[in-house]
């Protein structure tokens, strides 16, 4: 019994930062372990290394992305101020204000999309409690919890705060040739993004708390399922909005600027709300000609600054409270009577896969991803095409079809440690694989549905287009099944095994590519048969039908191959 046990001391900033790094690593490791606890092949040391390298990789890629975004937005500011971006010269300041505001909003959203799952892990793993086992003061435990949380996003936050102010300062200097507006502008940017980061930390934690208490730790009642789906739809919509606004920047900024001019002063109210007040503040600080003296905006920025400080303080107290157990983060629900519902084996497998995959937003978004890729193509076609040819439809459907062929591996991976349980059940391997292929096939039904919806907007030149779209459903089915059989053969020797993304990344990519090839075979057969018929001098309409026959021959070929592989490759 040491005499010094229980003594506490004040931590230096350097010590606190170092310990916070360990806390952040612990969160990453515990999250990885929760996904991979059934691991039979990876040692704990390997899992720690992998958690560390994954965290570094994520930090690097996200920082790189933010850096690139900062450069792009810097270029937009430069083009605007040099008069080549379509904004009227007298309203260039509005365009610049919108550019800065949109970057700020994008950074805010990006931190939240990326950070909500990490924040949920921070709460669920109770990593904030680590500081309480150390001989440090109560105030220091709160600081440790906050710093540990911040260190999960440190490089992303630093990139956001540093890159754009730098880019902005350089652009202002190049345009006006003076250091004063450049420095003042860059400083205003810096303050803007510090406020953004502060607000993002609080919002992330509120959303993560909501997600954890209402979705992750509460039951599977109908209401919770609805809330979960709504949450995911909102999340997906926000990501889609983020992606679309990035693609349509060249339209959005001049449009907002024009609307501001036409509908002033109604639109000017915008400048007092977040994030537009930030853009106005930066424009005011850098003294861009034509900027009206909106000094009241400074008060608004001060208000947001105060809110950000309050948000960070709240986050610190909240994290400290979670760590000590003073703040309850698990929800209590109504106790319902015990019941049991026995369904068919296939239905039970399907239901289980859907439930597991939709319990986390990060995985649930995968259900929407193949179809999200169709939206930009759909928009482009809507704007640019007067009629839709068969070839347009093929372009429209090929990406989601090929993408879905990678989903076989995704549905194996979502089970994570649960796969070890599946292996204890009296289920033939083939039955489990078929259930996953059926689920992917169900998802693929959206392809013809979207094509039909597209037909309501634009006229189609040939009805074969619809038949091709519907043929993607069996195409996806056979490619998913073949890739699952291959994976089981080459990774598990014919038996299902506990799947670990980190451990099987190469096999996963290879099998995904194989699935993509099998998904492409019927489409290639269509092209081949169509080309041969057209070459023989037949009319195009006939070539389309012959191509369709070729497509079905491709599907049949895949189907027979899949059956053959399953027969020789799979072990019950």
């Amino acid at each position, binding site marked *: 019994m040491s005499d010094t046990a229980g003594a506490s001391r004040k931590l230096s900033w350097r010590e606190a930062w170092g310990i916070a790094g360990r806390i952040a690593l612990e969160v990453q490791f515990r999250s990885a372990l929760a996904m991979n606890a059934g691991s039979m092949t990876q040692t704990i040391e390997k899992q720690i290394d992998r958690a560390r390298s994954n965290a570094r990789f994520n930090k690097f890629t996200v920082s790189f992305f933010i850096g690139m975004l900062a450069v792009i937005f810097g270029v937009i500011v430069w083009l605007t101020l040099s008069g080549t971006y379509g904004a009227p010269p007298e309203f260039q300041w509005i365009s610049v204000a919108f550019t800065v505001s949109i970057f700020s909003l994008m950074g805010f959203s990006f931190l939240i999309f990326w950070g909500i799952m990490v924040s949920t892990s921070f709460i669920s793993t109770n990593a904030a409690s680590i500081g309480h086992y150390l001989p440090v003061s109560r105030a220091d435990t709160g600081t440790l919890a906050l710093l540990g949380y911040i260190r999960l996003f440190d490089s992303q936050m630093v990139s956001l705060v540093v890159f754009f102010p730098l880019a902005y300062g350089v652009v202002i200097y190049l345009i006006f040739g003076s250091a004063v507006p450049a420095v003042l502008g860059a400083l205003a940017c810096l303050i803007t993004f510090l406020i953004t980061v502060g607000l993002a930390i609080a919002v992330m934690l509120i959303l993560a708390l909501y997600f954890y208490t209402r979705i992750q730790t509460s039951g*599977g009642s109908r209401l919770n399922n609805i809330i979960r789906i709504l949450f995911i739809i909102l999340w997906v919509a926000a990501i889609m909005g983020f992606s679309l606004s990035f693609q349509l920047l060249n339209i959005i900024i001049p449009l907002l600027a024009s609307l501001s001019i036409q509908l002033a002063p109604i639109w000017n109210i915008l400048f007092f709300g977040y994030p537009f007040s930030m853009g106005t503040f930066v424009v005011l600080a850098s003294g861009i000609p034509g900027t009206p003296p909106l000094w009241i905006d400074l008060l608004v920025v001060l208000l947001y600054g105060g809110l950000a400080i309050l948000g960070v303080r709240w986050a610190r107290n909240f994290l400290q409270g979670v760590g000590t157990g003073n703040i309850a983060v698990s929800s209590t629900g109504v106790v319902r009577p*015990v019941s*049991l519902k*026995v369904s068919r084996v296939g239905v*039970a497998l399907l239901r289980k896969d859907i439930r597991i995959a939709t319990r986390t937003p990060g995985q649930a978004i995968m259900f929407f991803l193949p179809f999200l890729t169709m939206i930009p193509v759909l928009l482009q076609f809507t704007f640019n095409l007067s009629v839709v040819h068969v070839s347009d439809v093929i372009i429209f459907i090929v990406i989601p079809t090929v993408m879905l062929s990678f989903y076989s591996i995704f549905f194996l991976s979502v089970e994570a440690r649960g796969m070890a*349980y599946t292996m*204890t059940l009296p289920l033939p391997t083939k039955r489990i694989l078929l259930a996953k292929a059926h689920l992917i096939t169900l998802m693929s039904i959206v392809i013809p549905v979207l094509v039909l919806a597209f037909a309501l907007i634009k006229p189609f030149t040939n009805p074969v287009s619809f038949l091709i779209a519907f043929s993607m459903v069996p195409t996806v089915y056979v490619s998913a099944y073949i890739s699952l059989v291959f994976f089981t053969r080459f990774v598990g020797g014919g038996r299902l095994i506990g799947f670990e993304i980190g451990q099987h990344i190469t096999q996963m990519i290879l099998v995904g590519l194989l699935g993509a090839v099998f998904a492409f075979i019927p489409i290639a057969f269509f092209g081949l048969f169509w080309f041969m018929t057209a070459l023989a001098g037949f009319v195009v309409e006939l070539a389309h039908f012959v191509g369709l026959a070729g497509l079905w021959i491709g599907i049949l070929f895949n189907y027979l191959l899949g059956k053959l592989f399953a027969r020789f490759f799979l072990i019950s």
Partner: protein
Amino acid sequence: MTQAVKGNGRPIIARDLVRNFGRTVAVDHLSFEVRAGEIYGLLGPNGAGKTTTVKMVSGLLPPTQGEVEVFGFDPLNQPIEVKSRIGLVPEDHILYESLTPREFFDFIASIRQLDQWETKQRITSLVDAFEFRDHYDKPIAALSHGNRQKASILSAIIHDPPLLVLDEPFSGLDARTVRVFKDILNIHLENGGGILFSSHILEVAESLCDRIGIIDDGKMVAEGTVDELREMVKAHGSLEEIFLRAVQQDTEVAETVQALRKALAKENKR
């Protein structure tokens, strides 16, 4: 326990089992059998090969050499027959963490195609006996260690299997649940079922097991009833003493404790 009569032979017959992981020999020519109506305890220190043996018996891991029969079926070539007759409580909680127990038991009952009405009666009684009703709609990931263990046990006995394979089944359970579970095991034995019980908690094994196999470094070092083991290793007293003598750690443990006593003595610090 309708499936018991479908199978032929004893619950478990393991002959000359070997399992290598690279150069490491986890299980080394191990033979034992579990008879109907008995609890066979597989005891051994950490890393002795107990869990590997459990996995081979359950058809989750193929043996490098040797063979296992579960009610006359080969777990490797007839896994469906074997898995439908086994209720497994693994050492780790292998469960679908994001499902609630309600969803999880629905899934198991559906996969095993159990009778809905009968199984509902059974699971209701078990849930009440385990005082688990309050946790029935919480995701398994949000349950405490003890409640996860309860979920794991319930998932192993929901289908009333003729053979229970239990790897450290009492881990994390409170005294009340331990008592209830022991009674459930007794009822299972009275109904003619068999149990393979793997543990390193000797007090529980001593009070529960009809026969015990002590393994060390993958090898069977002693086997029999507690009295037979006592006679075999010439030890007196509890199973702990028999165990330490069997794995030849009694002298080493005494020396370690002696050294520790010296190191921790307060006089040394002054």
